[in-house]
């Protein structure tokens, strides 16, 4: 069709009812998100937002990022038909998006690369980060080594103890790892401490947040950088199958790998999107990390979102065998997608994840991280119920080398 666009039709590339246009100008996805930080940080958060908007509009920024993603990170990551797993489950075809093959072994580096290029553009000379399992800390330490910037990583003392290999990796890469002993000494406390560092070092420091949480623009910015996962997978699946998946599945702690997988599919209503939270010892055990299934909306770490909290609004401790899912909150866009029911959120227990971990090792020759083992556990539940020509796309967002000690302990094996 040629000629003028009808006046009642938007000129935007997305239809008016697109689910991909958020957040709004206040950084909100529905009632979630926002910028709940102390006044000292507010000007910095606004500075990051302005710098990111400018970078997005500058084709040279994306071009530079693309070069690093291709030649340093190793993108695109492959799409793998997990045939033996598919045969074993006896139902839908299962495809893995192999983000565990990225440099550093997880999806975290997709966003770290974007954020450090932004930090350099802003003239920042020092990087801080928080980490749970250590994957985001390792990815941040890696890009800091690559660009020659000093790096301080905050990590809960509990996680320092259970993720010793990643702590040593970060140190080898030249990062300073600061154990955090406040609170339960896990990921949420590490994030508190990183925010305190940022408040005290406002002029030279850029905070590389590891997930789609924090004050606006972080949830949107990290999602944008991680969307490379879904965009690639969509094109790759189209190339081999000529169609969209029936279901896309990803595990959820803060939710960055899931947001990166889901976002490019949000406007494809035929694709069911399923996020898998960590049910720990069980949803009714009080020891889990299922913010959507068992939490309620509140404000923590700069955004309004579903949180695990008690009746007085005190944040309660999360539990998961996977340190990367051990967070009492979730990215605000997930909270919105949960409330509007575009994404289904389910959960898998520690035991189910451990079983899925072993299943993946033996059927596919891939040692997955305990985080995506939760996604595999759900795939193992639903694939057998689906037709053989149905397609499940799952994000295998990290490799499990870091977890072998935890798994050995859980299986009663002494190394």
């Amino acid at each position: 069709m040629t000629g003028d666009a009808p006046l009642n039709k938007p000129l935007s590339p997305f239809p008016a009812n697109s689910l991909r246009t958020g957040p709004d100008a206040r950084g909100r996805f529905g009632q979630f998100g926002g910028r709940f930080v102390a006044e000292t940080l507010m000007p910095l958060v606004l500075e990051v937002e302005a710098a990111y908007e400018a970078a997005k509009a500058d084709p040279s920024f994306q071009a530079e990022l693309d070069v690093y993603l291709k030649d340093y990170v190793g993108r695109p990551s492959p799409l793998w038909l997990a045939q033996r797993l598919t045969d074993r489950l006896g139902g839908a075809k299962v495809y893995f998006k192999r983000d565990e093959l990225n440099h550093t072994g997880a999806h975290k580096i997709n966003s770290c690369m974007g954020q450090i290029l932004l930090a350099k553009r802003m003239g920042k000379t020092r990087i801080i980060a928080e980490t749970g399992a250590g994957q985001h800390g390792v990815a941040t330490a890696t890009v800091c080594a690559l660009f020659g910037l000093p790096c301080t990583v905050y990590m809960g003392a509990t996680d320092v103890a259970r993720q010793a290999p990643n702590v040593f990796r970060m140190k080898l890469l030249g990062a300073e790892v600061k154990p955090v002993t406040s609170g339960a000494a896990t990921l949420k406390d590490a994030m508190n401490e990183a925010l305190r560092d940022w408040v005290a070092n406002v002029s030279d420091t850029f905070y590389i947040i590891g997930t789609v949480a924090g004050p606006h623009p972080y949830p949107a910015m990290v999602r944008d950088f991680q969307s490379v996962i879904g965009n690639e997978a969509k094109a790759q699946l189209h190339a081999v199958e000529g169609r969209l998946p029936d279901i896309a599945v990803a595990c959820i702690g803060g939710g960055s790998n899931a947001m990166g997988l889901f976002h490019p599919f949000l406007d494809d209503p035929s694709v069911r999107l399923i996020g898998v939270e960590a049910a720990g010892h069980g949803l009714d055990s009080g020891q889990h990390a299922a913010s959507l299934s068992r939490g309620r909306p509140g404000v923590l770490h700069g955004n309004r979102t579903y949180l695990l909290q008690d009746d007085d609004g005190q944040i309660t401790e999360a539990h998961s065998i996977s340190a990367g899912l051990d967070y009492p909150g979730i990215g605000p866009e997930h909270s919105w997608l949960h409330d509007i029911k575009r994404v289904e959120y389910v959960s898998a227990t520690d035991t189910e994840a451990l079983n899925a971990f072993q299943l993946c090792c033996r059927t596919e020759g891939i040692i997955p991280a305990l985080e995506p083992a939760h996604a595999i556990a759900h795939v193992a539940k639903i694939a057998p119920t689906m037709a053989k020509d149905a397609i499940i796309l799952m994000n295998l967002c990290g490799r499990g080398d870091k977890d072998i000690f935890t798994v050995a302990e859980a299986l009663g094996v002494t190394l």
Partner: protein
Amino acid sequence: MSRIAARFAQLKAEGRGALIPFLEAWDPDAATSMALLRGMPGAGADLIEIGCPFTDPMADGPTVQLAAKRGLAAGATMAHTLAMVREFRRENDTIPIILMGYLNPILSYGVERFCKDAGICGVDGLIVVDLPSEEADLLVPHATAHAIDVIRLVAPTTDAKRLPLVLDGSSGFVYYVSITGVTGTRTASADELAAAIPLVRKATKLPIAIGFGVRSPAQAAAAVQAADAAVVASALLDTLAGSLDEYGRAGPDTVRLVLDQVRELAEAVRAARLTA
């Protein structure tokens, strides 16, 4: 006239600045923190700030973090904090009480119900650390409806262009965060204050309190010479923490030691303008 406005008007007439000591609710237990609250007016407090314990106090340094942890361990809730104020009001209806805390416990209580109950209990002002002006519309209408001031934080990172936005809708007084950093870590120099406070003064008619890093009587005196009030928190909490026994219980001298320190600070604040 609100208690806060009345108190600052009275101090202005006396030609002196205000001391605002801080205590954390239920730190280390309900009875001790109540005794501190009751004793502070007699020790020379002009206004009193009560911290509401929260599990994740992201703007606070180790001293206030530990105070919050002790309060929570003793069982403090927002309802308990409000009950402290209600009990205090039975014997004192003039000294302004400011609650300082984080947003989530207020959201959990229900913003509207919290403001109503706080008003009934005799709370005069709220400082909500993680509620910047961009998000303040969720609290201000309800607080205003119950005659509670929403006290805004201004930081060294707040530039002249941003100041009007930050101060829009603020009332009571303005809280100047004197350092870029968390509570109780370092102290702003007299030169830094002399450069910063006039800019804030130009943007508001409200009194200005200086907090974060005011520890000693001399620093409190310097704060009221540069501005209108000095908030002292970590130094008092350090004294309290130092008086606890090995199980974290209040010692026989806990209340006296903290109140003696308030008295020293008050004397310095009262002498500051007279010798200036």
